[in-house]
């Protein structure tokens, strides 16, 4: 009886130990990514198999791009606010409204164009195959993915193009 109980306990303990070992080994990479100073860049490194030199260069590009992008977003938000104020008191399209719309569209176009430039720069820093994969990923996961125009009853549910950094 005692021997049987020992074997029974051994099996249960073995199962728990096996679970912990495999789980910890299997989640080592994501845990390391989460503990890094920039987890999203650590993900980029892991996902696109970047070497240290490539990763350093991409981190520099990223750090250089973000402040400029945030500045453009701030300017777009300012234009949005001004446009809202003007629209609140307007009864027809004035030259000021047209000017603001044009400025905002220009700023949005610049923002998107700079974003695309950044993506190309990052992809060129990667090995060619990974660069292609990266570009395919950004086209599919950013605002450049194909979005159907929507005029139906679901127009309230459509997403607005707010310039907003997380």
């Amino acid at each position, binding site marked *: 009886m005692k021997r049987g109980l020992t074997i*029974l306990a051994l099996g249960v303990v*073995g199962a728990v130990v*096996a679970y912990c070992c495999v*789980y910890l080994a299997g989640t080592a*990479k994501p845990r390391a990514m989460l503990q890094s100073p920039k987890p999203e860049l650590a993900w980029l490194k892991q*996902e696109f198999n970047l070497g240290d030199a490539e990763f350093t260069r991409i981190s520099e590009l990223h750090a250089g791009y973000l402040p400029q992008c945030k500045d453009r977003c701030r300017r777009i938000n300012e234009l949005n606010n001004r446009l809202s104020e003007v629209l609140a008191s307007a009864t027809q399209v004035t030259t000021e409204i047209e000017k603001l719309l044009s400025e905002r569209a220009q700023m949005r176009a610049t923002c998107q164009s700079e974003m695309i430039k950044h993506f190309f720069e990052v992809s060129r820093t990667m090995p060619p195959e990974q660069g292609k994969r990266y570009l395919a990923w950004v086209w599919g996961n950013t605002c450049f993915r194909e979005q159907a125009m929507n005029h139906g009853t679901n127009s309230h549910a459509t997403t607005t193009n707010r310039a907003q950094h997380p």
Partner: protein
Amino acid sequence: MRIDNSNRNTPPLRALLKEWKQEASLPPRFQEQVWRRIERAEAAPVPSFWLTKVFANCLTNLLPRPALATAYVALLLAIGASVGWSQARQETARVTGELSARYAEEVDPYQTTPQP
């Protein structure tokens, strides 16, 4: 649990029984029969559950066999490892998805987060 029957003829008990008034007459040797039934009930084995018996039997006779013990431990190790692997995959996919979304949000200000 055994009941101490040595008190069956003690004076207090007899006095108490004498005080008890009853109209109906008891069958002959009633008291003796009652005690006999108590003794029989105490002597009967405690009923055990079938599953407990089978489990104990397995622990005593089957599990200590080397082949069966090895198979049992190997099976539990495999189950533990499989569950761990499956959970690790889920966790990795969750973290990867979360970080890729964070990267996309950071570089693309037009990225929209789902409204609650």
